[in-house]
């Protein structure tokens, strides 16, 4: 084997991913070429240095409520792509198909209906056929899921087609409003989402918290919102509502959000 073709394969040689006959020819060259031997040894040292990053506990810095933060941002609508984003892929495929254009008007009407109602439904159109598992692609619209986290989705008439799932244990809302220490993250996430969607309902909820507990609960919720990056958006949403109760609560969120992260 020539020097150049050996040198080119040294990484794969070190990884043991080459066919045996290639390795044998490389062994023969390596036995006679100190340059390739040095290069191989240095590559191996480099690979070992990189490997030391794999063994260190990289995930140690991940906050324990990372998942709750993500869910709070999703509840707040941050993962909603809008019409184009949500339908973009199907739309393009569909338009490229032969059934697409004739059905355009009907599909557009149906899409509009869905968005105006703002409810979770599954849209099935023959032209959207792209997935092998079903004849037509299902498009779940989860934007309007506003059921409380402790209420089974089956309780909602709109959710007839959704699978009923066992809910994980979580403290009752009243306990969290009184300031229960743990497990209230899901309630916080839900309240943040509620505030984004229905500021007035949210403010009424705040009002309903017993006086003694309100400030502490609001503190906790604000910290949660600040931590998940939703506090300032939520505050703005509340102010927009024009509700007379909004100012005090919004200010609370803004003040907490001004505290630097961790």
């Amino acid at each position, binding site marked *: 084997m020539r020097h150049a073709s050996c040198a080119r394969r040294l990484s794969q040689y070190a990884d043991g991913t080459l066919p045996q006959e290639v390795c044998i020819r490389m062994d023969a060259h*390596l036995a006679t070429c100190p340059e390739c031997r040095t290069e191989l040894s240095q590559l191996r*040292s480099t*690979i070992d240095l990189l*490997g030391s990053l794999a063994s260190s506990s990289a995930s140690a810095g991940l906050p324990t409520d990372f998942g709750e933060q993500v869910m709070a941002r999703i509840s707040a609508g941050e993962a909603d792509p809008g019409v184009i984003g949500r339908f973009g892929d199907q739309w393009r495929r569909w338009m490229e198909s032969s059934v697409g254009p004739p059905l355009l008007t009907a599909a557009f009407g149906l899409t509009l209906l869905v968005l105006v109602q703002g409810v979770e439904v599954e849209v099935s159109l023959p032209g959207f056929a792209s997935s092998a598992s079903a004849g037509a692609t299902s498009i779940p619209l989860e934007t309007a899921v506003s059921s409380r986290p402790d209420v089974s989705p089956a309780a909602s008439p709109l959710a007839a087609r959704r699978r009923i*799932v066992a809910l994980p244990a979580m403290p009752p809302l009243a306990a969290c409003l009184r300031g229960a220490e743990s497990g209230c993250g899901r309630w916080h996430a839900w309240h943040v989402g509620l505030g984004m969607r229905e500021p007035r309902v949210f403010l009424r909820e705040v009002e309903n918290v017993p006086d003694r507990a309100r400030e502490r609960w609001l503190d906790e919720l604000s910290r949660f919102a600040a931590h998940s990056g939703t506090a300032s958006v939520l505050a703005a949403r509340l102010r927009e509502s024009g509700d007379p109760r909004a100012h005090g609560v919004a200010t609370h969120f803004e003040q907490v959000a001004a505290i630097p992260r961790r």
Partner: protein
Amino acid sequence: MTQPILNRPSSLTAHRVAPVESVDPDLELIDRWRDGDSQAFEALVRRHERRVFGLLLRMLGSREEAEDAAQDTFLNLHRHGHRFRREARFSTFLYRVAMNAALNRRRSLGRRRAHMDALVREQSGGSALPSVPRGPEDSAAGGEIRDRVQQELQGLPPALRAPVVLFDIEGLAYAEIAEVLQVAEGTVKSRIHRARKALKERLRDLVPDEGPAEEKEGVLA
């Protein structure tokens, strides 16, 4: 025998497996999520958050940025999850979303960030590091070396950094990396090689010039 200056973690080779050979353990949760169960999505987040964070930390070099990019990853997953097709493994798809989050982050941070990185490097660079480490885990020197390797990794262009992180740190197979990065398998192999060669130069003081005396045996090992 060639004695590597650092012992390679055995877990690395253990989990480098062919991507599609068993039932994807995530499919059940994905089905439930697509049926509208948001708790199934949260369970997916919890199952994968550590690995996604680890990958992003290696790609971006800062915990805070990795955490932000990890959040972006799962928000994007929620947004674009319908693009996932069963021919691929879910974890491969997720790696792809995470890698895109890392690359987008890099791009949007732009020059300001690059300037700050350069400042940090200037301040921490030039410090004398032990050239013969005994092992990565057992000493403070190990931590310093890891920091240094991470820093030099940051200096590679993303196109070279991504495949070498996925192969040498995350332990993915060539084929899976090709899928994550949407490039040919041959490209993955050559980029890994180029990345290692570039790193070898950057880490010159940590990589001995001469191999050990019993070179030939090492070669055959």
